């Protein structure tokens, strides 16, 4: 069960605090184990003239240790205990992915990258590396999550499109909803262009048809989820939000304070780089709640 053992990527800043708070929310529901990890840059991997970077390495280790001590203080304050690991890797995301086995983790939790808008989820290099190579689902905290963490997740949403790969996300979301005893919402974002003059009617007609199709897809998915024996229909809601772009559509949807979004990564991308749907990325950037992404590389 996801959340049985959670690996948190920690840095002594806003990101780290957000990730810790989110991980705490996760294990509050599952009673799972926590592992907090700090990834530091490695020393020169090949011999140069002498092992000149020993002191630099020792320094990085002590910095990482100090960061983890800070994390331990925060978790102690919440009455949580955890294991602490330092690893050396050139990429923080790859470093975390390597630790999954050691920590026997089934979920990696990280914060949002710095920069960009003040809210929502920002994907940085750590997230990027994880989404391309993590063997387990990756959970991302929106910025400032630590300032207003909910007690529990009170609804699980899944960004739904009738595409291969999405059933996995629905399945995961449904399991979490059952486990947490919450509602499951299948959410589809429909984006239409703004039109002017005569075209308006045409575009509106088109949009209506798209939304109709999404509705029936959603109904079908909801029924499948019910048939899968996971949830009953009264626990599943469906919603189509429509807007000129993903951001405004997401803004029109209603979000509960303890919402958790589940997203699949597209399986159809011809290149590894573009594996994640353009729409998924746009949704991620706009959502006010934490999100779990199923990387294509997830087991």
């Amino acid at each position, binding site marked *: 069960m996801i959340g049985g053992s959670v690996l948190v990527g920690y840095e002594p800043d806003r990101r780290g605090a957000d990730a810790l708070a989110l991980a705490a929310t996760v294990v509050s529901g599952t009673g799972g184990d926590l592992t907090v990890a700090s990834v*530091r*840059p*490695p*020393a*020169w*991997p*090949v*011999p*140069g*003239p*002498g*092992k*000149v*970077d*020993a*002191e*630099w*390495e*020792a*320094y*990085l*280790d*002590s*910095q*990482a*240790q100090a960061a983890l001590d800070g994390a331990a203080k925060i978790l102690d304050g919440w009455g949580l205990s955890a294991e602490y*690991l*330092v*690893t*050396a890797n*050139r990429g923080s995301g790859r470093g975390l992915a390597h630790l999954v086995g050691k920590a026997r983790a089934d979920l990696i939790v990280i914060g949002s990258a710095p920069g960009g808008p003040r809210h929502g989820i920002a994907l940085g290099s750590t997230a990027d590396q994880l989404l391309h190579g993590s063997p387990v689902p990756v959970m991302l905290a929106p910025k400032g999550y630590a300032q207003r963490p909910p007690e529990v997740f009170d609804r699980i949403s899944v960004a739904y499109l009738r595409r291969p790969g999405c059933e996995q996300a629905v399945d995961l979301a449904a399991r979490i909803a059952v486990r947490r005893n919450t509602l499951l919402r299948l959410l589809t974002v429909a984006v239409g262009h703004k039109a002017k003059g005569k075209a308006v009617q045409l575009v509106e007609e088109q949009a209506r048809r798209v939304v109709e199709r999404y509705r029936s897809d959603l109904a079908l998915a909801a029924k499948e989820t019910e048939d899968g024996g996971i949830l009953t229909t009264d626990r599943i809601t469906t919603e189509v939000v429509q807007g000129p772009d993903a951001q405004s559509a997401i803004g029109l949807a209603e979000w509960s304070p303890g919402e958790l979004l589940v997203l699949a990564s597209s399986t159809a991308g011809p290149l590894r780089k573009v594996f994640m749907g353009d729409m998924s990325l746009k949704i991620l950037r706009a959502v006010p709640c934490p999100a779990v992404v199923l990387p294509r590389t997830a087991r």
Partner: protein
Amino acid sequence: MSMTAALFRTKSVDQIVAEGGKGEGGELKRSMSLLQLTLFSVGATLGTGIFVVLGEAVPLAGPAVVLSFILAAVTALFSALSYAELAGTIPVSGSSYSYAYATLGELIAWVCGWCLLLEYAVSVSAVAVGWGQYLNEFFDKTLGFTMPAAIANSPGTAGGVVNVPAVAVVMIATYLLLNGTSESATANTIMVFTKIGILIFFCVVAATAFDSGNLTPFAPMGWAGISAAGSKVFFSYIGFDAASTAGEEAKNPKRDLPLAILISLGIVTLVYVAVGLTAVGAMPWQQFDINGSEASLAKVLDVATGMSWPSAVLSFGAVVAIASVVLTVLYGQTRILFAMSRDGLVPPIFQKVNPRTSVPVANTLIVSAFVSILAALIPLGRLVDATSIGTLFAFALVNVGVIVLRRSRPDMPRSFRTPLYPITPILGVGFCVYLMVGLGAVTWTVFALWTLGGLVCYFLYGRRHSRLAQSPSGTREQVS
């Protein structure tokens, strides 16, 4: 604390060991076999010194330069064993500076660090200059043009004003280092094979023009010339300490480390001797010009074959290989200054790291600016000669350090003990001093001036800012 006591205060070895290596990066697996250790060491040692050093060494020793290579190899062997012992005793320290600090005291450590500045920053400037000349050689042979002398040479040589290629290669290396790039194991393997391939290529081509008449007289300058050239070519063995520092990873350090050091130095010496022998066999030693181009191997191929493509191939290999050396040596210099800054001996700006990449940015920029200016504007001449003394001095100190630590801390656990103690470290010091003595009076004067400058810096800054000075017990305070 009295003045003398302050000058010879040492870092407590126990505390150094206790401070380091808590993270996963610090726990190394004992996984390296003898073969791996040997290859590791050959890869680190077989450097680019050989590409630039013959032009300086052959005029000193004549064809007997091959004996100079053997002399330098023996010197390196003893020092490598001492390195291995210190690396196994104080694994969290890296350079000869740190070893000197733990064993011989602050003043000598400072002088050692100051000498490392010669070994790294000054010698990398010289190597960068050599890079420019091989690049020019390559352009000349393939595209038929050379860069104008004004931008291709340093002032004072052949009408140079600013050495642009030297600055360019330093800038590229700086850019990579600032991005947290480290040479990957794969890149290193490719580089090692490139270097070996190019050197074999050189030997084969030069051998076709071998004329045994070129070998007589064999040692026109006698032993004095051989030892003087030996100290010059010692520079091309730098990196031999790499296997020593891998002692923590060796499966069986007691047996494999000395063997790996011996075998790898044997292999490297064999390659160097082959290169030296075919070079002097192909081109009369009088034609190696001490003030001329540093691209001496390319020149030999020109003379030997009368064709342009062999030297083009060689130049290309040299350009690639020297660039990677510039990167590693710059890296080494920044990390040594980082360690010195953490000890308070150089200003704290050298230990400021970028929070995202953990790269000491200011440190890297200062070092590369320093190296660029040296390479671009200063006729290095004698200062480069002084690097030989500085390097040999630093290695002599490592040998002394072994003896000191055996006497002061016989109880310390040592993963490797140098065989035949105390003969090996004493011979190590002896050979280093012998090579140092072989260098000319002018070089000694330059070295003395350099050291004097270092001492002035120490007494004006380092002595008062030393972290040991601030913790009265004489041991390093805990890093916060």
